[in-house]
């Protein structure tokens, strides 16, 4: 690795730091605005003003805001995201327990989206302006217009109630399967590692419908970006040269054009992945998927706010880190960025 490459990556990391700081500040502001006085909550039955004041003092809520912020970031640096009233456990532990379920769902959803949308985008680019192009545009726009919670319900009705193909749409495993001992927390990976294919099939059957409803939303951005990148690649000089040299069209399309269109598509996949983490909340609710989103929602309904704040913070940080990761991958993969930097 040449020093200039390290320098570019270092610059990207540095550029992400103020954004991360912004995420922490926004979460802190949201924390202070949230209704439900935590001191009043802890005071419980001893609902006298003096008791509330005392607890407020003990929790540091009577301090000036900058000092409170200092306490907040000191806590964060020690991994303290507060404690959930409803489960009694630290929010960070709860989030870490549930994060693999959410990530697995989003990963399968984006993989499904890419598998369908990339060929559609290539088709639209090859037939630019034709009916196939129009059809792809309408299909993907329909996909992005589908509320994921609604498509999830309709998939349940069709495949669980009417056709009885899908298992009961509750959670990551049906009642007859036992979760394997946790290695990565990703059920599909853990079962494969342990060679437990029966449970693997059960887990795969559970994830199909939620991943499908989440994946439909990702079709439009992926197909659009593929189409755009393919159009740019197809109109460049090296394609004209390849065609003039008499290379077979298939080879021109996939080997020359597509390979050059892959990078912007990868960037989009990174964006879509992080975006879908947000949309997963709705799908998790519909399918009782035990991820971070349904955890935050359950807490919200019980007016337990620490998990909601933790959820917003963790997803914000994850979003920044994921996009940074994609950025760095691109720097490594694309020599042109190195020249520019």
């Amino acid at each position, binding site marked *: 690795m040449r020093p200039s490459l390290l320098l570019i990556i270092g610059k990207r990391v540095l550029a992400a730091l103020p954004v991360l700081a*912004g995420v922490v500040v926004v979460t802190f502001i949201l924390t202070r605005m949230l209704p439900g006085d935590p001191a009043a909550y802890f005071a419980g039955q001893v609902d006298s003003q003096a008791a509330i004041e005392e607890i407020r003092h003990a929790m540091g809520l009577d301090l000036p805001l900058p000092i409170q912020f200092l306490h907040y970031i000191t806590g964060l640096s020690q991994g303290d995201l507060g404690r959930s009233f409803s489960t009694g456990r630290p929010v960070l532990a709860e989030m870490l327990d549930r994060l693999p379920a959410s990530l697995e769902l989003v990963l399968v959803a984006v993989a499904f989206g890419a598998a369908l949308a990339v060929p559609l985008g290539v088709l639209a680019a090859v037939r630019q302006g034709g009916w196939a192009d129009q059809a792809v545009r309408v299909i993907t726009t329909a996909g992005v217009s589908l*509320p994921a*919670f609604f498509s999830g*319900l309709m998939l349940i009705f069709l495949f669980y109630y009417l056709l009885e193909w899908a298992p009961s749409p509750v959670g990551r495993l049906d009642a007859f399967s036992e979760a394997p001992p946790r290695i990565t927390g990703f059920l599909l990976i853990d079962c494969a590692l342990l060679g437990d294919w029966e449970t693997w099939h059960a887990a795969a059957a559970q994830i199909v419908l939620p991943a499908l409803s989440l994946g439909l939303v990702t079709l439009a951005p992926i197909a659009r970006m593929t189409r755009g990148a393919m159009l740019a690649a197809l109109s460049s000089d090296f394609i004209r040269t390849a065609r003039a040299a008499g290379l077979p069209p298939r080879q021109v399309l996939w080997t020359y054009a597509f390979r050059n269109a892959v990078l912007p598509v990868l960037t989009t996949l990174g964006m879509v992945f992080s975006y879908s983490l*947000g949309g997963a909340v709705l799908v998790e609710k519909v399918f009782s998927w035990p991820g971070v989103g349904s955890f935050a*929602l359950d807490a919200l*309904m019980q007016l337990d706010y620490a998990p909601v704040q933790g959820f917003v913070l963790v*997803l*914000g940080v994850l979003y920044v880190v994921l996009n940074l990761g994609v950025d760095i991958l691109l720097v490594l993969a694309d020599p042109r960025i190195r020249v520019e930097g």
Partner: protein
Amino acid sequence: MSLSFSANAWHVLRGNPATLAGALICGGFALLAVVGPWLAPYDPMATSAALSLRPPSAAHWFGTDQVGRDMLSRVLVATRLDLGIAISATLLSFTLGLVLGGAAGWLGGWVDRAVGRVNDTLMAFPLFVLAMGIVAALGNSITNIIWATAVVNLPFYARVARAEVNVRREAGFVEAARLAGNGSAGVLFRHLIPNALPPMMVQVSLNLGFAILNAASLSFIGLGVRPPTPEWGIMVSEGAALVLSGQWWAALFPGLALMLAVFGFNLLGDGLRDLVDPRRRT
């Protein structure tokens, strides 16, 4: 100018059935938002134990829900609320974005940097998660869904406005306007802002669909609009449990209305983007 624009619009719409369909759908929903309450055959709030969970029939086209309310009436009446929330939120982000972005592009310096920092931070969250956090923080009300939807969309408008103002700040016609004795505000509002409007209008129509979806999603998870108010997101949420036992209509019709409205605005927004800037179609 207006003639050539409408001629151009007609040309684009004719050659582009998808955009035409989008325009028709949007027009239809706008009409329903106005006349929906008069079209509703029943009182959307009237419950009736005897009529609980009737499937669609001649008397109740969309069936009835668990407490016997007519679904067709509820879906029709909800149009005004859903569109109203989305339009208010979009107007808010449009105005705030124009002011912030315009100031950033025109003044430059620390204002530009500050606005840029706010934009970056707001965009560092998955949109729906931030909206959820904002509604949870501000409290559970319709006004707060509007604010949350407006805030998460703000960066898109502020960026477009900033870029459009910034790119023309030193342009010849702006110099000329300044030399002709126009004040700073005059140049900004009469010469720079009007040029920023077309791309911002495209953003509006692209965003309306998202705003409808965002507001309905927040209601679906129990934030914002509260039952028994007829609203598409809540109605889908109320019908969700019934789907498992085969009563599909209580969730299907409000969900379809929601989907169709979002679809229409997305198609139209896409088409408008072609109209305003044919080069940008990707």
